[in-house]
């Protein structure tokens, strides 16, 4: 009888490696999904450096300036409107006029060269988001942008994955608020009962028949 090619524990090693291989594949996929959802990939909560260290906390929370003072088209257009240099200067031509931090803004105003800010949210080009309709239907700034009034440098509050959009499009009554409270950063959605929020959904004529989850609502 010739010598055994495989040692006695070969079967165990084979089974263990099989198990290890499966775990490797499962683990890799899990790690990829985890990475995809994590701030390393989504940038959620990670403040971006900007040419001017603009603080929403100071301007919104401390000075109580309305969102629309700078984001003036939020009620009328798809884009909320990024403030022109002139908007900054309508106060800063008088206030903080010698601050070195605002040198970039002053130079921009004098030369007409725009300040190049770093974009926080970059929605894929096949998604057609419209700020005005959301504001008009009682979805507040903070519902998507979080407590931006508490942030010094702005950071993303949401990764903007489609499932997150659909969460509200399927159940707007979980997020809706009265129109007068849209710009209120401290509004708590539970300030109204579910029944009252359902009533708002009807009052604001938000379709509840599933129309809002049709592909063409956001993709064209």
């Amino acid at each position, binding site marked *: 009888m010739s010598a055994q090619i495989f040692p006695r524990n070969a079967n165990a090693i084979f089974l263990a490696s099989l198990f290890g291989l499966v775990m490797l*594949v499962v683990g890799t*996929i899990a790690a990829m999904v985890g990475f995809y959802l994590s701030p390393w990939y989504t940038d959620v909560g990670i403040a971006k450096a900007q040419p001017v260290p603009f603080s929403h906390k100071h301007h919104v929370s401390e*000075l*109580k*300036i*309305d*969102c*629309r*003072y700078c984001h*003036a088209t939020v009620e*009328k257009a*798809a*884009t909320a409107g*990024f403030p*022109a240099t*002139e*908007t900054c*200067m*309508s*106060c800063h*031509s*008088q*206030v*903080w006029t010698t601050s070195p931090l605002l040198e970039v803004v002053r130079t921009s105003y004098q030369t007409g*060269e*725009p300040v*190049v800010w770093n*974009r926080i949210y970059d929605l*894929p*080009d*096949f998604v057609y988001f419209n700020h005005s309709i959301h504001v008009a239907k009682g979805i507040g700034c903070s519902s998507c942008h979080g407590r931006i009034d508490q942030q010094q440098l702005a950071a993303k509050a949401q990764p903007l994955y489609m499932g997150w959009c659909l969460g509200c499009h399927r159940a707007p009554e979980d997020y809706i608020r009265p129109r007068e409270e849209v*710009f209120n950063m401290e509004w708590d959605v539970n300030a109204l009962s579910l029944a009252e929020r359902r009533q708002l959904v009807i009052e604001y004529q938000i379709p509840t028949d599933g129309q809002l989850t049709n592909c063409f609502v956001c993709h064209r």
Partner: protein
Amino acid sequence: MAATVQGSSRPAEVPVGVRNEHRRMVNSVRKSFFTRVARLAWLPLCLLLVACHVDMYDQPKYKPNDVSTFFPDGRAMQPPPANTVPLNSYNPESPLMTGRIEGQLADQLPPELKLDAALLAHGQSRYNAFCAPCHGLVGDGQGVIAYRGPLTVPSLHNDRLRNAQIGYFFDVITNGIGKMYSYASRIPPEDRWAIAAYIRALQLSQNADVALLSEAELQQVRAGR
């Protein structure tokens, strides 16, 4: 009926040979099932072949505030050429657009707008957003910017402004005055009129004659004190 019940309650007697044969068949089916699954074990490797492409995410088109490599100034949003207006959007004869009737500041709202509670409420929301930072919520010039900064913001409550035509406020919002910048790019003409109307309401609120108040309002005021 009774016979069926009796029949089903009795365990079936299966010969040993048949039972073994059955077990063998089940095992062979099991084995072939696992073999088949094992043959597909290479499928997850296909994941390695998947590549990411972003040509639909970043399409060759401009969105607001994009950086442009085409225009020399690097802006996707090109400023409108000087001395132009969007087509059909501006009428130099219309008081709604200019705040003037035949060159003189308008002393009433343009005919397109109706003075009602909705207009005043709209004006209040715009005033609070755009004007209150400097002029204060009641128009006393004690807004938070003025309060913190070195600015002195004039009050809206003096005889000159109480007697000014309503078109004057429209004109100031449109063109700016003194240290105040033009707000024409941020506040559309209809909203400017709404703000002007609300300023009138503010002026009344700070300078109302007691005789104007109804008995109920008087009681409310007294209760407040």
